[in-house]
């Protein structure tokens, strides 16, 4: 149950208008000016709000209202820019936008957390940077290189733009992921602007009002109970060294095996059972090692990648099924967007792992939100590997799925239906029954 004071409502129907998608960045120019003006005022309002909240223990109603409207407006504008919603947003952030926020009225806040709000927000800022929450940003490294931190949100915008222009629809997974990152960013801003003292919740399953349960050839079933052994947490990195070595050796064999699998699948239209079995074990093993290393699961994994050997975060891979030869032929090229997403999810997973390490060491538990976000990242990695190694021709699903958490196990794996022709589809066509909420 999501009881966070900053909540998301989604009434988007996934349909997009080509012309407004194509020109979206230009159409939003008036909003950039309005956003700059509003941000200027909001900065001083935020400082004032901090002082008054520290003094009164609660944000004054008029300031809370002003800053809540600002956060709502920014969320709506970024939803528009990232193709997570279609209608042109209003300048006064009214209710009812397809991706909208509800922000609870001002409530009492812990003065101590108000005083140290900025340092306390640092972990959330890191997660938000990886997720590409509101605003994104960039910073210069010591070498002078400029690093963008648009994160997953930025990628969903770019991928969504291409798909929406081509298909006049936004894939559900991209939209949901974008909505999740926007909500996390909004919760972070609400925390920073003293609208609430509730910490941002990184749980993707709690973010969205409705999370789909999809059937897929590669699924991850999470049965983790959040408990962590402090001893194995403290030594998690060196404990993983034997696995790194074994994974490196296995990868040396897996690479030629995947090339052989590609050739045979191209000829026969189906992955041979022996190679499929071997590469499936490789994917299962890889995911279990990273789940252990990044603290998204607790037990020390085995070395064989056997089915059912790692129930805490088990990767299920369906038996070989017929695959589209065109998709097989161009697999390496088609996988590029998925690789980019996997890289962004990988960054998120590492940030969650580092933050989760401290948390698990102190509390002996990992926060549910971080674990579930990590499970999402690993599920995407598993689906990407399955796609790249030709275990399936189903494209990885970007958005949160019910199976990413232990409360909602995913549907059993099924053989995906073959598709007759080559279609560049970064997401599978959404199931209408799972489409927009509301």
């Amino acid at each position, binding site marked *: 149950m999501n009881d966070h004071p900053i909540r998301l409502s989604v009434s988007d129907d996934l349909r997009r208008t080509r012309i407004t998608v194509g020109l979206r960045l230009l159409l939003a120019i008036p909003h950039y000016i309005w956003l700059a003006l509003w941000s200027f005022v909001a900065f001083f309002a935020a400082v004032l709000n901090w002082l008054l909240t520290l003094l009164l223990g609660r944000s004054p109603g008029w300031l809370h209202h002003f800053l809540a409207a600002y956060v709502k407006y920014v969320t709506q504008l970024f939803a528009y820019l990232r193709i997570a919603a279609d209608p042109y947003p209003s300048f006064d952030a009214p209710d009812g936008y397809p991706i909208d926020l509800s922000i609870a009225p001002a409530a009492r806040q812990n003065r101590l957390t108000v005083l140290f709000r900025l340092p306390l927000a640092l972990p959330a800022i890191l997660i938000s940077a990886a997720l590409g929450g509101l605003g994104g940003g960039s910073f210069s490294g010591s070498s002078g290189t400029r690093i963008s931190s648009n994160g997953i949100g930025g990628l969903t915008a770019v991928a969504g733009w291409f798909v929406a222009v081509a298909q006049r629809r936004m894939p559900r997974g991209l939209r949901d992921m974008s909505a999740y990152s926007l909500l996390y960013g909004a919760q972070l801003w609400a925390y920073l602007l003293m609208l609430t003292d509730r910490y941002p919740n990184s749980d993707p399953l709690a973010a969205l009002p409705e999370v789909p349960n999809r059937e897929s050839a590669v699924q991850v079933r999470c049965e983790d109970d959040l408990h962590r*052994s402090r*001893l*194995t947490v*403290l*030594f998690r*990195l*060196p*404990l993983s*060294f*034997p696995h790194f*070595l074994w994974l490196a050796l296995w990868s040396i064999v897996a690479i030629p095996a995947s090339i052989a699998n590609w050739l045979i699948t191209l000829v026969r239209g189906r992955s041979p059972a022996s190679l499929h079995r071997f590469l499936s074990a490789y994917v299962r093993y890889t995911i*279990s090692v990273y789940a252990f290393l990044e603290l998204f699961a*607790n*037990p*020390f*994994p*085995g*070395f*064989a990648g056997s089915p059912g*050997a*790692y*129930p*805490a975060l088990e990767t299920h891979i369906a038996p070989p099924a017929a695959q589209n030869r065109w998709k097989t032929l161009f697999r390496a090229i088609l996988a590029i967007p998925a690789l980019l997403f996997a890289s962004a999810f990988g960054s998120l997973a590492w940030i969650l792992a580092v933050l989760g390490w401290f948390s698990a060491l102190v509390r002996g538990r990992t926060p549910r939100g971080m674990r579930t976000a990590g499970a999402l990242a690993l599920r995407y990695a598993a689906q990407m590997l399955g796609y790249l190694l030709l275990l399936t021709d189903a494209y990885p699903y970007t958005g949160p799925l019910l199976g990413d958490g232990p409360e909602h196990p995913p549907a059993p794996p099924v053989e995906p239906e073959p598709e007759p022709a080559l279609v560049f589809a970064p997401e599978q066509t959404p199931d209408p029954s799972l489409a927009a909420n509301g």
Partner: protein
Amino acid sequence: MDLAVSRSERSGAGRRAAWALLGVLACLAWVLAAHALWRSSVPSGLKLPHVDPRSLFSASYLSSSRSYFLLLAINSLAGKLVLIAVLVLYARRGQVLMRESAAGRIGTGMLLGMLGFAIVWLAELPFQLIAVWWERRHGVSHQGYVASVLDGFVSLGGEFLYISFALLVAMAFAGLTRRWWWALAAPVFAGLALLSTFLSVYLIANTKPLRNPATAADVRTLARTEGIPGTKAEVQDVHRFTTAPNAESVGFGPTKRLILWDTLLDGRFNRREVRVVVGHELGHLAHHHTLKRVGWLILFLIPAAAIVALATARRGGLARPEAVPLALLVFVLLQLLSAPLMNIVSRREEAEADWSALRATHDPQAARQLFVDLARTSHDDPNPPTWAYVLFEDHPTIVQRVAMVDAWQARR
């Protein structure tokens, strides 16, 4: 019936006799191998003259180096006692950590082995930090506390790899042959030790070729004199961590190398002294000490593995992961017990290398000065108490080394 019983008894007695004979032969082979490894080129009748440390060092140095040495020795001893206590506790309770594993029999054993090492590291950490503090206080080390902890933590990864592989071998063989895994594992461990010695030169960090032309020329000359021409020398960059001078010889065959710490070449030691160091390390290589160390390790490992097999039998043998904490305890205990014996072996090899250096350089004055300077720069106690000498010293004391120089001079 009686005839059958008698035959069975005879057959049983015959088997026992065969095993006993095999045991005697194995012990004999062990003794013969140890004897072969024990041989030294230092004259057997060499009598070391008495050397008074007060003739080499001032009274204040002797007092200060004694207190420096004693704290390190007591700290190390306390660390060992805590290590044993922790391992006893781990042997009794360690198997509860099996619940943290989803890795099957061998994988779980690996986890327990690694966690045992991790707990040992944690238990020894305070003692390590005390040693760092003491060395920094005496200007012997520059290493920071955090760097020391981080270095230890990172090097745990390498230790984890070793223990995991050792347990993989031992537990895999124990799964095949419950009681005799040690006999099968011993050749594998021997091969690994040999491989590790052969490749050890590639595992040493921060090395660069020896560029000092005078020292390089000395290395070439002395290598020819000691019968190992063409031996390569490298310099290891350690001055960021320590001021202590040192050198080592590693590898064998094509990988044999002489490694000189850059703290030896920073101007505190003159060319003649460095020549003695080079002669000493080349002496190790010329007398195959790197290989002999592997030989001694094997001689230790075979009975140690057999004792571990015997000790873990009550817990179902090493095939079962719950036996790993006990195996770890037994192995570490054997290692601690055998340390004084291994120190004797090491001191004998060091003495032989010193003798070899004297024969190659013909420069007893430089050798004498080197040993005195080595003690001063490392703040070494030239004549430590006997208990500490037995437990910790893997080199002859400075006084013994100077005495050997005197003995060599007397024989000329």
